[in-house]
C-alpha cells in the first residue's frame, strides 16, 4: 500500500469531479447542511489520521532502513533470483538489469516502497538499452512492470495501523488473506503477460539479449 503521488493531470480532473459531483448531489438529495459540516470536520479528521500514521511510519521506516543498510535486501534479492529467473529467460543472470530487477522486487516484498522505485527505474533504463532503445515495450519490460503493479508485500504495516486506529480488534487478522489474494493477482498478471508475450501475432525474431 503506497500513496506517494505526484500531481498528474488525471488527479486534477478526478479531484475537481469529486467536489463538483458532491455539491450537485447534495442539492439533489437535499443534504446541503451535511456538506458544510463535512467541510469543517474533514480537516481535523484527516490531520488526526496523519498523526496516527506518522508514528508507526517513522518507526517502521527506521527499522526498514536498518534492513536495507545491513544488506538484508540483497540477501532477499539472492534468495529470490532463482524464482525470478524463468520470468526473464532472455536476460543474462549476471546482467545489471536482472540485478536491479531482483533488488526492486525484494525491496517491494519488504515494503520498502521508497527504496524499490529507484531500482525499478534503473531496471527499466537498462532494459530499454538492451532492447536497442525501441519505442515499443519489450517482453521483459511488460513482465517487470506488471509485477510492480501487483502488490507484493510481506507485512502490510500501514494497513494494520489504519485498521487499529479505527478500532479493529485484530488488525493483523487480514495478513494471510492479503498474501493469498496478492499471490493470485500476481499469478494472473504473470500468466497473461507471459502468454501474450508469446502470442504468434506479434512474433518477431528478436536476438537473444545479453
Amino acid at each position, binding site marked *: 500500500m503506497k500513496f506517494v503521488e505526484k500531481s498528474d493531470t488525471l488527479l486534477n480532473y478526478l479531484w475537481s469531479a469529486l467536489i463538483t459531483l458532491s455539491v450537485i448531489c447534495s442539492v439533489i438529495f437535499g443534504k446541503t447542511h451535511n456538506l458544510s459540516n463535512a467541510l469543517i470536520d474533514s480537516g481535523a479528521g484527516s490531520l488526526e489520521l496523519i498523526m496516527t500514521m506518522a508514528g508507526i511510519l517513522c518507526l517502521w521506516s527506521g527499522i526498514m532502513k*536498518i534492513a536495507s543498510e545491513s*544488506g538484508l535486501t540483497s540477501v532477499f534479492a539472492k534468495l529470490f533470483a532463482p524464482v525470478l529467473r524463468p520470468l526473464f529467460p532472455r536476460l543474462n543472470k549476471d546482467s545489471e538489469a536482472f540485478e536491479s530487477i531482483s533488488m526492486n522486487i525484494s525491496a517491494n516484498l519488504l515494503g520498502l516502497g521508497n527504496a524499490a522505485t529507484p531500482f525499478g527505474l534503473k531496471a527499466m533504463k537498462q532494459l530499454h538499452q538492451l532492447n536497442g532503445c525501441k519505442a515499443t515495450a519489450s517482453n521483459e519490460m511488460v513482465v517487470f512492470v506488471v509485477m510492480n503493479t501487483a502488490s507484493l508485500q510481506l507485512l502490510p504495516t500501514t494497513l494494520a495501523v489504519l485498521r487499529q486506529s479505527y478500532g479493529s480488534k485484530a488488525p493483523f487478522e487480514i495478513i494471510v488473506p*492479503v498474501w*493469498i*489474494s496478492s499471490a493470485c493477482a500476481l499469478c494472473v498478471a504473470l500468466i497473461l503477460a507471459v502468454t501474450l508475450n508469446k502470442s504468434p501475432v506479434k512474433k518477431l525474431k528478436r536476438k537473444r539479449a545479453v
Partner: protein
Amino acid sequence: MEFIMPAFACAAVVFGIIKRVPVFDVFLKGAKEGIMLIYNIAPTLIGLVFAVDLLRSSGAVESLCELIRPAAEALGFPAEIVPMVLLRPVSGSGSTALLTALYQDCGPDSFAGRVASVLAGSSETTFYAIAVYFGCIKIKKIRHTLFAALAADLTAVIMSIITVRLFFY
C-alpha cells in the same frame, strides 16, 4: 500473526548488529525519511480525504451503493467497497481516504471492512506505477501491460471476497 512485526524488527536489528551497522544511527536516518514521507503525503491526503468526505456526506456514495446493492448482494459482494474498487487503480491516497471512510461507516472488522482491507493490501495504484515506469524511458507503446495489470486488479477484488469468506465466515 500479531507477533510477526516485532519478530521482523528484532531480526532486522540482530542482522544489523552482526553486519556491524550502527543500528540506532541508521534507525534515526530512516525515521527522518519517514517524517519526510508524512510531510510529503499530508497535503495530498488532506485534499483527497476532504473530497471523499464531501462525496460521502452528499449522499452520492450511499445512493450508488443502494443502486447496486441488489446486484452486488446476489454476487456475494459488499456494495460498500465499489467506490474503492473503482478508485484503487487510479489513486493511492484517494483509495486510502475511501478506506478510512468505510472503516468509519462499517467498522474495520465488518465483512465490508475486511474485504476492503484485503483489497487495499493486495492491489496497487496500477495507472500510477505504469506511468512512472514507462514514463522514465518515454515508452508509449506498452502492449498488453495495462490489460494484464487490470486483470490482476480484478483478480484481487474477487480473491479478497473469497479469502475473507473462507477465513472469517
